[in-house]
């Protein structure tokens, strides 16, 4: 599923990595625990989280997560933006809950990892 399409479905907006938003991801994963994200071995993952910290971005970099959706209307900090820009992580802000974002994307065909 294309990042642009995902952004529209969530009524969110891309705060970092707009130029790469044409790429597609195959899998979705929701987590508020960073070690959970670090256990993933698949490629082409989008993570939905309510954890809006610099470490969320750092973890995405390490785990090679293509795109992170920050749910629950939380606002990305300038430091997070800067790190996402430097590491190529696409960042989306969305007002809905993690549950709703997951439901919408699952129903639209984004696959679970397990």
């Amino acid at each position: 599923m294309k990042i642009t399409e995902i952004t529209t479905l969530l009524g969110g907006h891309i705060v970092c990595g707009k130029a790469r938003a044409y790429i597609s991801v195959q899998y979705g994963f929701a987590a508020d625990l960073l070690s959970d994200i670090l256990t993933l071995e698949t490629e082409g993952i989008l993570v939905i989280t309510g954890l809006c910290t610099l470490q969320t971005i750092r973890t995405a970099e390490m785990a090679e997560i293509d795109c992170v959706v920050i749910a629950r209307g939380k606002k990305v900090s300038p430091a997070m933006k800067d790190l996402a820009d430097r590491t190529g992580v696409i960042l989306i802000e969305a007002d809905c809950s993690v549950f709703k974002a997951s439901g919408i994307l699952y129903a639209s065909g984004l696959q679970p990892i397990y």
Partner: protein
Amino acid sequence: MKFEFDIVDGDFAKAGTASSQVKHLLKQLNVDTKIIKKTTVAIYEAEVNVVAHAIGGGKLLADINLERIVVEVVDEGPGIEDIARAMEVGFSTASPQVISMGFGAGMGLPNMRKNSDELEVISDVSGGTRVVITNYLVA
């Protein structure tokens, strides 16, 4: 090639900078992407543990040749009381501050084991902790 990076305790804004630099080094060496990922994840968990659990910070020492990378992550305490227990999924003594940063699930050490070819954890409560991760670079 040998590299040394400082790890500052309690500074979650900087946690991961050493691992990130090692990742870049491995990319420059054209190491297989799967091996880069597992190595980065293992050393990042070790680096975060120093930030989260150690007092006084520590160091990350990387030694890379064509065949393998050896990363030593060392700190000066307080050490791990029961290493076998710490290696279990779910065991954590993380503070509320660490938990608020998204860590403290007790998954770091098991995750390090999964992502390293060889893992050594040496620790005692009078000294500090030394984690040695060895990964082979040829797929």
